[in-house]
């Protein structure tokens, strides 16, 4: 005797459930079709280049060579100092200036337009014009010092390592300050004026108004902007390279310019390694920024 198992006859699907599952399938299909270009672009423009870069950077000998290069440690220190000074100074100034530009007067708005110009114009000509201006022999500043005060050897703006480093930071701040000031101006404008009026009636001083109204309202924007600025500052190639080329004497490189220095010397592996080495600095910042933004969204 053979046991036979009879399959239970399938229940005829109701018309409405068929329609629902068909509708869901269609939605999923359309979703996939609509998503495909984005996935493709993301894969081609982000995943592949970053993955290829990481793959190129998998040569451990490059990292050994990088650490053996005496210039590398100096570059790391320069990068950290550059990051710390440039970002903090820039935001401190931006915070103060945003208080000035928030005033709704016609002439202030006109000054704001002028103030935005350094950010709006392309980096290469403007930074190169600084380079020309700061040239110790023929630059406008030292020429004027010679002309007016008879100073033959003016300051070595780009030839003294410390001064040259300060100039790089100065140019970086000059270039990016308008943008961040504008962001903080926008943040200030979003604060309800009633709060200030009420505080004023209560006899709060300007400092107290700033401390108890402005700063708490701006803090999130300030910290998020600072993080974003840190990522951009870390990757700022133009301010250092166009102004000093990492000089004098390769003493003022930051990580972003050191990579190019290696690549110019046909040393692609070290160039890649010197850029990938910045990842431990960038990734936590990206993580914290995304976390903050997610909090904001909630």
């Amino acid at each position, binding site marked *: 005797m053979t046991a036979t198992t009879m399959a239970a006859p399938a229940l005829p699907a109701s018309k409405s459930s068929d329609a629902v599952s068909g509708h869901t399938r269609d939605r999923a299909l359309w979703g996939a079709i609509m998503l495909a270009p984005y996935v493709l672009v993301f894969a081609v423009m982000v995943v592949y280049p970053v993955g290829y870069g990481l793959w190129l950077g998998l040569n451990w000998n490059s990292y050994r060579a990088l650490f053996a290069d005496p210039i590398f440690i100096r570059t790391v220190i320069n990068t950290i100092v550059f990051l710390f000074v440039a970002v903090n100074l820039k935001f401190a100034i931006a915070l103060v200036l945003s208080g000035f530009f928030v005033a709704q007067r016609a002439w202030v708005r006109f000054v704001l337009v002028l103030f935005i110009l350094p950010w709006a114009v392309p980096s290469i000509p403007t930074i190169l014009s600084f380079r020309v201006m700061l040239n110790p022999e023929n630059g406008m500043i030292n020429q004027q010092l*010679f002309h007016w005060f008879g100073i*033959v050897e003016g300051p070595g703006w780009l030839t003294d390592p410390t001064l040259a480093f300060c100039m790089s930071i100065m140019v970086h701040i000059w270039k990016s300050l308008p943008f961040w000031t504008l962001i903080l101006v926008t943040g200030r404008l979003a604060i309800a004026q009633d709060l200030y009026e009420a505080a004023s009636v209560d006899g709060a001083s300007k400092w107290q108004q700033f401390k108890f109204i402005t700063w708490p309202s701006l803090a999130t924007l300030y910290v998020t902007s600072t993080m974003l600025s840190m990522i951009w500052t870390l990757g700022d190639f133009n301010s250092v390279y166009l102004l000093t*080329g990492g000089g004098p*004497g*390769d003493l003022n490189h930051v990580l972003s310019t050191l990579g190019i220095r290696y690549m110019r*010397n*046909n040393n692609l592996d070290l160039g890649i390694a010197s850029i990938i080495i910045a990842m431990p600095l960038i990734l936590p910042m990206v993580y914290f920024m995304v976390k903050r933004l997610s909090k904001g969204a909630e």
Partner: protein
Amino acid sequence: MKSVRCLVTGAAFAAIAAGWSGAAVAQETVTVWFTKGFYKGEDDALLAVVDKFQKATGVKVDLSLYATEDCVTKSVGAVEAGTPPDVGFCTTYDFRTTGKWAFDGKLEDVTDVITPIKAEFQPQALATTFLMNGKTKAKSYYAFPVEQQMMHITYWKDMLEEAGFKESDIPKGWDGYWDFWCDKVQGAMRAKGKRIYAVGHPMGIAASDTFYSFLTFANEFNAQIVDEDGKVVLDQPKNKAAMIEAVKAYANIFQRGCTPPSSVNWLDPDNNVAFHNRTTVMTHNATISIAGKHMDDMSNPALTEEQRATAKKNYEDNIRTAEFPTKPDGSKMTNLAAVKTAVIFADAKNKKRAKEFMAFLLKDENLQPFVDGSTGRWVPTTLKGIESPFWTSGKDPHRAVVYKQYKDGTIPFQFVYNYNFTTLNAENVWAKAVNRVVQDKIAPEVAVDEMIARIKQIAG
């Protein structure tokens, strides 16, 4: 009927076109990459050689001319990708790639081309193409010595006179020479209220002029860096002491304010620019390109007649090319020569024709017009070429000095013996040591210790 006629006519045209394209495909091609000439004469001479070669062999030469930096960058990329041209000649190959390519087995052994014409070349120039192959562990000819350059002093005679001196006042000895320019000439100019510097002294890390000038100083102090087997000997006490003196001397010109402060950031053209702008009275430069610029301007139709006349006056009277002073020990200096090398790549598609092309180019009647087309910027590597009236007649004041320097003898760069020195030159360990002294104010002895450590790290 009409449509049939159309069809037949179309088929006939298609057959003819196919025949032509077939013929085009069948024509052999040799791919050649060269650095674009500084002067039109160089390119014209090269195009003439290409034309002659094509007519003589029926082989098409696919010639590409690139700017100096592009040439080497494209070549490096192509070699890495395994798709190099058949022949490559970039004027910075010798500084940056030839030795390494030979060592890595990326170059074709060209002994069979060199051997029959060996006697026609200057032995010291030819020796720079006899390179080590790390794979075969043997030396062989892996490149062709096309032309070469040396280091020269260039000064404004009229500025010297303005400072109150004659050419005969310039001392010949080492210390007196630099004191003369730094103290007397600059001092006199400053006394006249002029903000002029005596010496254009390349100090920039990214300039090949800097390592060429510095190594000339090291040569003056007899600092031997490697031996002929490529072994680093700089750490030997005698050589180390000589190198410390060289670093001191090189840094000293900056420290005494004798060169424009911006020279620490100079790139290759900057000492030329400072000289042309009369910011400096003299400079040292590899090739006579500074004077050559004025010679070029003499016949430049884009300039006014007055500008051309000024250029002529500058070239013939105002600008002087001179030799370096004697060594600190009083002996005559032997010049450091950089021989510009052409190569055939191991991965080339048409090595046979590439060798034929190079053999053709190296024939005296072809090579000489090409080299001389640079109007003295490049110096011949053949015995016949350097003895031609172009160099020996003495009619040209600048070339006459170059010829004399050549006759004083030449020596090669360290990278000929140990290819790792191309990396050290690119990194410019020499300029770094000098900059450590002048910028970080460390003792020259410490800077040289750092330099030796780095050299040993890279070059063994």
